[in-house]
C-alpha cells in the first residue's frame, strides 16, 4: 500500500483515499518518530451485521477530490489542536469484505492525551464531513445505502 504517501499536507501529515486493502502496520510505520511516546491507531471495520441483518460486505463510494480536500482540512485542524503533524488518515473505497478496514487513523504524539483527543476528533469529523457513502450488501443479496448525515446542516452549524 503505497497510497498514503500520495497526498502529503504542507505540515507533514498524510491523507489518502485508496481502493487497495489498508495495511495497519504500513499506516503505523508512517507516523514513527523517536521524539514521541504515544501512538494511537484507530481502525474502522466492516461489521457482519447491521440492525439485526447479516451483512456480507460494504461498498464505499467517495467524491474523491472533495473528500481528499476535506480530509486535509480535518487533519490540519487536528494537527493544530494536537501540536503535532504526525498524523496519517487513509480511507478506503470500493467493495469491502466483512472485517476489512474502511478507515485507518494513526496519530503519534509526545504524550498520550493529545493522541486520544486528535484521533477521536478526526473520526468524528470524518463521519460528519467527508463526502463518502456506503451501501450495505446483505447476506440475502439485497443492498441499501446507509442513512447518513446531511452535509448542509453541518456547514450551517460552523
Amino acid at each position, binding site marked *: 500500500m503505497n497510497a498514503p504517501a500520495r497526498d502529503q499536507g504542507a505540515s507533514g501529515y498524510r491523507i489518502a483515499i485508496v481502493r487497495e486493502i489498508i495495511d495497519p502496520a504500513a499506516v503505523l510505520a508512517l507516523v514513527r518518530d523517536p521524539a514521541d511516546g504515544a501512538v494511537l491507531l484507530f481502525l474502522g471495520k466492516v461489521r457482519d451485521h447491521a440492525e439485526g441483518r447479516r451483512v456480507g460486505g460494504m461498498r464505499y463510494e467517495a*467524491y474523491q477530490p*472533495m473528500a481528499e480536500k476535506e480530509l486535509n482540512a480535518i487533519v490540519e485542524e487536528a494537527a493544530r489542536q494536537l501540536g503535532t503533524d504526525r498524523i496519517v488518515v487513509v480511507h478506503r473505497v470500493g467493495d469491502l469484505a466483512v472485517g476489512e478496514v*474502511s478507515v485507518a487513523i494513526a496519530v503519534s504524539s509526545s504524550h498520550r492525551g493529545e493522541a486520544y483527543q486528535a484521533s477521536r476528533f478526526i473520526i468524528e469529523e470524518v*463521519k*460528519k464531513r467527508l*463526502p463518502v457513502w456506503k451501501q450495505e450488501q446483505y447476506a440475502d443479496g439485497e443492498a441499501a*445505502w446507509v442513512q*447518513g*448525515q446531511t452535509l*448542509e446542516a453541518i456547514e450551517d452549524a460552523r
Partner: protein
Amino acid sequence: MQVRSLFFAAYRDAMGTGTLDVDLPEGATVGDLVSSIRSRGAPFNRLPKAPAVAINHEVMRGDARLTEGDEIAFLPPVAGG
C-alpha cells in the same frame, strides 16, 4: 452557460446517471439548476428540492450563483468512516 452536475450514491441510483451537463442562463443559482433538472421529469424529478451541494468541491447554499464550467455535486447525507 454550461455546468456539470454530479450525482453520488443514492442520488446516482435514482437519476440513473452520475453526470449531467446542463445549460443555464447567465447568473443562474444552484436553486435554478435544481429546478431545471427536476423539470426534466422522471427520473430527474426524484432529486430533492433542496439537496446539499458542493460547487467545485466547496459546500454551498442554494442561493449561490453558478458560472460557466462549474462542477456541481449533489451530495446525499454522508456516511464515511
